[in-house]
């Protein structure tokens, strides 16, 4: 049997973290009373016009720069037409012809065989990033055969990040999206919380034999976690292989991932291939961005976006932060990977290191093996930890000064975890965990034990 090469590409929609929407001044907020964050423009009432939000443009430029893209100094807006109840205008304003950023790349880390010690760096090309409007939300009420529409989300700014089909399996797709998520969160351009719909991923999957052209691809939607992304992609690859090996064909269709059944199913409501009738958005002139060289002399600051100015102020990206941690603290790459993988953990680690004499190489064990596993067991974030960096540093100092053994330290940590407000020293005294250091006292104890044995 000839081998199959799976090909996976991704279209990721990230909600821009901004106060107001892309083309209107209504608020961006999760979970508000229905239709309370909607302006006349968002509801597509006649006589309204789009007005571009500066912050959204900056977010897209930051993201483009972080993903090594070329920023298009002139980009254009277009209308993409289709009918759906949550798209009141009947079209979405997007950037189809000339998006704001193109031709970038994203490096991500893959753990071979799930072993943290074997990490491989992979790269996926970024085709483009475009600014576009989000649609409203449809709540399907099948019992009454109706759809309830909430337009709060309609018009919220999105960055669509298109990743080329350089990935080959669910694990790679999930790892790439995870790294993108960390980058977006570091930049602050999107909070990228998948569970709140701030990061939505559609996967394009196909399979082919080596040397042959790419196979027909399907689009998989309705994936709302990294775990499900990996599952959905792997399931779809298998489904296509089985279909083809049984003499069937793969249809160019859109499928939804059913998380309960763990499989993909054809999506309802798809009436054949869509013709979006793209046309230029007549109400918006081209978006012009500047850099240090092209900066116009007499323009109002507020109307100018300077790419170089934004570039200079980019924070350290996760990959850079990881390297710095390894360099500064002498920890292993897999340690810094784990530190950055949990929100706030790297800061916690650095805070403990500052407050203790224990070497960072030893501290890291306590952070990753003890603290992190407690957090995971109790489903807590670092912010919610009942053990502060101060308390942990205090405990590690006792250990470092050899006032307690490491076994005792673990016992104290378990007690600290209860969050009863006791200090490590108090717990040590309470449970009599002090290490005896006095030579004479130790000799006396040993002698007593030996004497006890002799008497039997």
């Amino acid at each position, binding site marked *: 049997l000839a081998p199959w090469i799976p090909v996976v590409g991704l279209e990721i929609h990230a909600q821009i973290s*901004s*106060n*107001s929407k892309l083309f*209107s*001044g*209504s*608020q961006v907020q999760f979970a508000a*009373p*229905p*239709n*309370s*964050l*909607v*302006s*006349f*423009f968002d*509801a597509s*009432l006649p006589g309204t016009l789009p*007005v*571009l*939000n*500066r*912050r*959204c*443009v900056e977010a897209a430029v930051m993201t483009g720069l972080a993903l090594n893209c070329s920023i298009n100094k002139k980009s*254009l807006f277009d209308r993409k*037409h289709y*009918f*759906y*109840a949550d798209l009141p205008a009947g079209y979405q304003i997007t950037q189809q012809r000339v998006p704001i950023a193109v031709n970038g790349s994203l490096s991500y880390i893959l753990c071979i065989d799930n072993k943290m010690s074997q990490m491989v760096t992979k790269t996926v090309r970024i085709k483009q990033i475009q600014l576009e409007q989000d649609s409203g939300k*449809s*709540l*399907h*009420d*099948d019992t009454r*055969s*109706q*759809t*309830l*529409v*909430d*337009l709060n989300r309609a018009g919220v700014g999105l960055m669509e990040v298109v990743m080329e089909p350089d990935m080959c399996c669910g694990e790679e797709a999930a790892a790439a999206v995870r790294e993108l998520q960390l980058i977006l969160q570091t930049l602050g351009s999107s909070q990228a919380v998948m569970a709140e719909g701030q990061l939505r991923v559609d996967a394009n999957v196909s399979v082919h034999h080596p040397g042959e052209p790419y196979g027909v691809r399907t689009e998989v939607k309705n994936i709302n976690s990294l775990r499900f992304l990996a599952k959905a992609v792997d399931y779809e690859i298998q489904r296509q292989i089985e279909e083809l090996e049984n003499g069937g064909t793969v249809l160019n269709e859109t499928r939804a991932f059913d998380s309960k059944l763990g499989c993909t199913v054809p999506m*309802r*409501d798809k*009436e054949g291939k869509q*013709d979006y*009738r793209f046309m*230029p958005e*007549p*109400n*918006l*002139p*081209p*978006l*012009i961005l500047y850099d240090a060289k092209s900066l116009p002399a007499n323009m109002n600051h*507020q*109307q100018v*976006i300077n790419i170089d100015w934004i570039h200079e102020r980019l924070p350290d990206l996760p990959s850079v932060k990881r390297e710095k941690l390894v360099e500064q603290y002498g920890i292993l790459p897999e340690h810094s990977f784990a530190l950055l993988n949990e929100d706030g953990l790297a800061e916690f680690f650095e805070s403990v290191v500052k407050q203790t004499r224990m070497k960072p190489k030893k501290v890291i064990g306590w952070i990753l093996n003890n603290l992190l596993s407690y957090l995971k067991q109790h489903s807590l974030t670092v912010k919610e930890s009942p053990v502060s960096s101060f308390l942990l540093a205090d405990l590690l100092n006792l250990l470092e000064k050899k006032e307690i053994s490491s076994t005792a330290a673990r016992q104290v940590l378990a007690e600290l975890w209860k969050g009863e407000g006791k200090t490590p020293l108090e717990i040590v005294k309470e449970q009599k965990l002090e290490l005896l250091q006095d030579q004479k006292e130790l000799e006396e104890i040993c002698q007593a034990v030996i004497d006890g044995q002799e008497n039997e």
Partner: protein
Amino acid sequence: QKVSVEVLDHLEHLALVDFRDSEGVERLQKAIDFADQLHEVNTDGVEPMDSVLEDRCLYLREDDVTEGNCTKELLENAREKVEEYFVAPPGNIPLPKLEERETFLQGS
């Protein structure tokens, strides 16, 4: 070159227009023929203009919340509502296929 029945059917689906009768289709055909005159102009090496606004400055708005909170007003337009939600049919109701709907296009 005449506009084919397939294209007319496609347009009726996409744009939900109704050409209604042969007069409607003729008017469309005449409009296209009129616009075809543009092909007489040689546009080799000329960047297409898609908006008279192309030299205008795109105004950038500050990221402040200035609108919204008008649920009552917006819902006044709704024929049906359920607890401040707009009500829509369960899904798109596609135009029936050419063979199945009453349109004069069938006879063409």
